[in-house]
């Protein structure tokens, strides 16, 4: 399957170690949704991972780092649409800060999030019921 195609499919994390470690606390976000620079920034600061210490031994960190880089949004010859317009000098560490995500989710307003749905943005699977299989078509 063409992982760049606009058919609502985004390749889920396929690497066992990466899936296991990320998934211990949250949905394992697809590597493609961020550029290498973002993943590097995240992996280099696991001690302060969105308010928690998520550090791993260096071997595991290295492994995950390599996997995410190899499948990141700019791993292919053409950058994926998910990372268009991002500043590599100051890469985002939240998928929800990418232009693509913001443009695609106008219905998830700040107002809604403040009214008790805080944290919703981190849980793709609340709305994308089959995201674990890579299916993001709005259902």
């Amino acid at each position, binding site marked *: 399957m063409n992982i760049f195609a606009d058919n609502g499919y985004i390749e889920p994390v396929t690497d066992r170690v990466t899936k296991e470690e990320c*998934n*211990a606390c949250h*949905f394992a976000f697809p590597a493609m949704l961020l550029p290498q620079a973002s993943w590097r920034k995240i992996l280099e600061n696991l001690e302060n991972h969105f308010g*928690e*210490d998520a550090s791993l031994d260096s071997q595991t960190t290295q492994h995950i780092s390599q996997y995410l880089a190899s499948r990141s949004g700019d791993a292919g010859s053409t950058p994926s649409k998910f990372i268009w317009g991002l500043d590599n000098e100051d890469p985002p560490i939240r998928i929800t800060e990418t232009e693509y995500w913001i443009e695609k989710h106008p219905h998830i307003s700040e107002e809604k999030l403040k009214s008790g749905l805080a*944290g919703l943005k981190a*849980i793709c699977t609340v709305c994308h019921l089959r995201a674990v299989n890579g299916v993001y078509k709005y259902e």
Partner: protein
Amino acid sequence: MKPIVILTTFIAFSLVGSLRAGELNELINHYAALAKTQDALFDGFDVGRGKSLYITKSLDGKKDTPSCTTCHTNDPTKAGETRAGKTIDPMAASASPQRYQSLKKAEKWFRRNCKSVLGRECTVTEKGDFLTYMKNS
């Protein structure tokens, strides 16, 4: 004195090897052996101290995780939830009998979560107290 320290250290390391098929008791024994090497007056772990460690709020850690209960709830027999919305199996051994089988896993989560909540690593005594509380919950 020295041979005793060496022997106890040897026992502690031997226990690590046998934990794969082990249970929570073996994990607690491991920390007890370690505690004895650090403090000759060590007289066992304590459920009350473990509970206190579990529920007490700390100001020294990360602000989003003031205590264990932030994610694990006040009742260790109940399922918890990570800040990112994932369900966490209960911590109590009675509710999650399969949880405590690996020293490596225990050490990984103590390191991370003690740093998140307390802003430092937990002592051997704190780890043993915590596990003793979970064993009795």
